[in-house]
């Protein structure tokens, strides 16, 4: 039998095993979050620096101004519907890729946009949507009057769906690829018609991938500011733009931190609700 470890040995064992991961979490998750939490409780000095007094005044300001509520509401709204659009497009796409003979090529096509800088890809949409742009060129070629497409919510939706589609398709593809298709045949064999067979035998197995994809898309889509900035112009202000503004030209880091904390809290609330409805296993499955 092994001798009982001394306290020193046990400490060493703990440090060697969970040490590196724990250090990473403390350095890059816990400390920044705490810094931001403290900053959100402070005030803006005359030069834009963080100064006491501490208090909840930034949160009070956020929740008492209907404009800010509208901004976060609009962010959640656009983020949600962009995610729904992405799911409607991405779900069949993942299945199509998984069963295709050319799945390597198709996967590469999904990933290729990442080879180009995100900002440049968003600028590319300006080329498409601007007044003398490609889309209007097509419209006028059919003898129709050119459309005012920039800035517009429509352009924000298109670019958001385009940008985040791969984040949904890739995890879902991983789930779909593992499915044993003979289960679909087994369902037919047991009397299920095609749609029923898919719904009962295949769909439930894609739900974890669906949720993973949903989160991977919804969280950044809600927080995006570049797309709204470039394609939404002054018309579409999202919570990401608000935060950027506070850390940038408004020089109010304290308020910017508070808005960031609110956004983070909302996302965590969503996760928590999901975990509650899915039971203990829900989050495990997701991760």
């Amino acid at each position, binding site marked *: 039998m092994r001798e009982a470890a001394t306290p020193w040995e046990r400490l060493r064992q703990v440090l060697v095993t969970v040490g590196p991961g724990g250090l990473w979490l403390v350095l890059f998750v816990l400390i920044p979050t705490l810094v931001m939490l403290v900053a959100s409780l402070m005030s803006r000095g005359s030069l834009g620096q963080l100064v006491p007094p501490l208090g909840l005044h930034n949160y009070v300001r956020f929740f008492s101004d209907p404009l800010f509520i509208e901004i976060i509401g609009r962010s959640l709204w656009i983020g949600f519907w962009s995610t729904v659009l992405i799911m409607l497009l991405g779900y069949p796409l993942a299945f199509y890729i998984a069963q295709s003979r050319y799945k390597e090529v198709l996967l590469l096509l999904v990933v290729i946009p990442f080879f180009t800088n995100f900002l440049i890809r968003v600028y590319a949409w300006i080329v498409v949507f601007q007044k003398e742009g490609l889309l209007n060129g097509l419209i006028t070629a059919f003898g129709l009057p050119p459309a005012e497409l920039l800035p517009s919510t429509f352009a924000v939706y298109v670019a958001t769906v385009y940008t985040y589609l791969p984040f949904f398709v890739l995890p879902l593809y991983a789930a779909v690829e593992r499915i044993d298709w003979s289960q679909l045949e087994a369902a037919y*064999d047991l009397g299920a018609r095609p749609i029923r067979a898919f719904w009962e035998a295949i769909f439930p197995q894609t739900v974890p991938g669906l949720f993973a994809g949903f989160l991977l898309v919804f969280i950044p889509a809600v927080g995006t500011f570049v797309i709204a900035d470039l394609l939404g112009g002054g018309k579409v202000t999202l919570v990401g733009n608000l935060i950027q503004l506070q850390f940038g030209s408004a020089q109010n880091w304290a308020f910017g931190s508070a808005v960031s904390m609110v956004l983070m809290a909302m996302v965590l609330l969503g996760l928590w609700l999901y975990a509650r409805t899915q039971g203990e296993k829900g989050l495990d499955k997701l991760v």
Partner: protein
Amino acid sequence: MEPTLFRSRRERKLGEHIAVRLEGVTKRFGDHKAVEDVNLEVRDGEFFSLLGPSGCGKTTLLRMIAGFETPDEGRVIIGGKDMTQVPPYLRPVNTVFQNYALFPHMTVEQNIAFGLRMKKMPRDEIARRVQWALELINLPGYEKRRPDQMSGGQRQRIALARALVNEPEVLLLDEPLSALDLKLRQELRVDLMNLQERLGITFIFVTHDQEEALVMSDRIAVMNKGRIEQLGPTEEIYELPQTAFVARFIGDSNLIPAQAIEPRKVKTALGEFVLDDEDALTPGQEVLLSIRPEKIRLFRERPNLPNVFRARVDDIIYTGSENQYVLVAGGQRLMCETLNHDIQEPGHEEFAYDEEVWVALTPEKLVVIQGGSEGSDPYA
């Protein structure tokens, strides 16, 4: 399932009705003919095996009966109705898949209940039948388990229960035992035979394992390259192979090229043999003689028997219950098996390496394979 002793399969009475009939069924995948002009009838309550090497078309044939593939030519008739174009969910058959294809997100209970639920059966009736099925496969109390919490053998039985609970007219089994280890496979063979006899459901069983097919089946169709090489009762397939392929694929066989010199007499490299064959040969005709290793008799003294020749013992393989002798005569190798029962009397002696022995081929045990060619090698 409690073990019971078996009546020999060949003594069983089979139904008069035809459960499944295939008429001129052909299936191509591109240029490749997977199944070519297959005709067969499976009788009600029969344990019917499709036996052949991988790629012979047996699984494709089964999939056409299940409805997963549509034949390019021919008809599939199940229970007297033409079902060639009927989709799988409307056919009165169920399948046990090679990899079981259990639904991983459902419990054992939900898996078994799936087919009944699709038929919109009332809940209490479903619960009753699921219980019946779990008892049938001897797994009561496993309702709430998931497939990934069960062993291969248990999963196999659940796949069986999931199919049988629907009371199909025909149960299709696609190599259901191939993923299991030998001991379990032998146990499940007996379980399957018991079950089939008890329920009286027609089984169509696909396998590449000739022993499995011989043990379990009433009749066997041996397939090769998309065609049926031979179809008949189990014993006939073993005792009277009609082609070199069947002789080689089912058990071991010695094949001796021969040329007829009289209607019942042939000339071979081992000497002249007399035959006891129903159909007479035309002199000059080239044929193959097939004889099973256990039917060759060896003697130390020259016996007073027909078809006797000298051979040398080239190798001896001791398998415990048997002595297998590799004999060389006339430039040809012959396999011979004798039971290891320690009796030293003519016809049962034990021999040593390089000993010169007398070999006797009983005319009734020599099977004539017409055509004379070597045939294709099933293991090539």
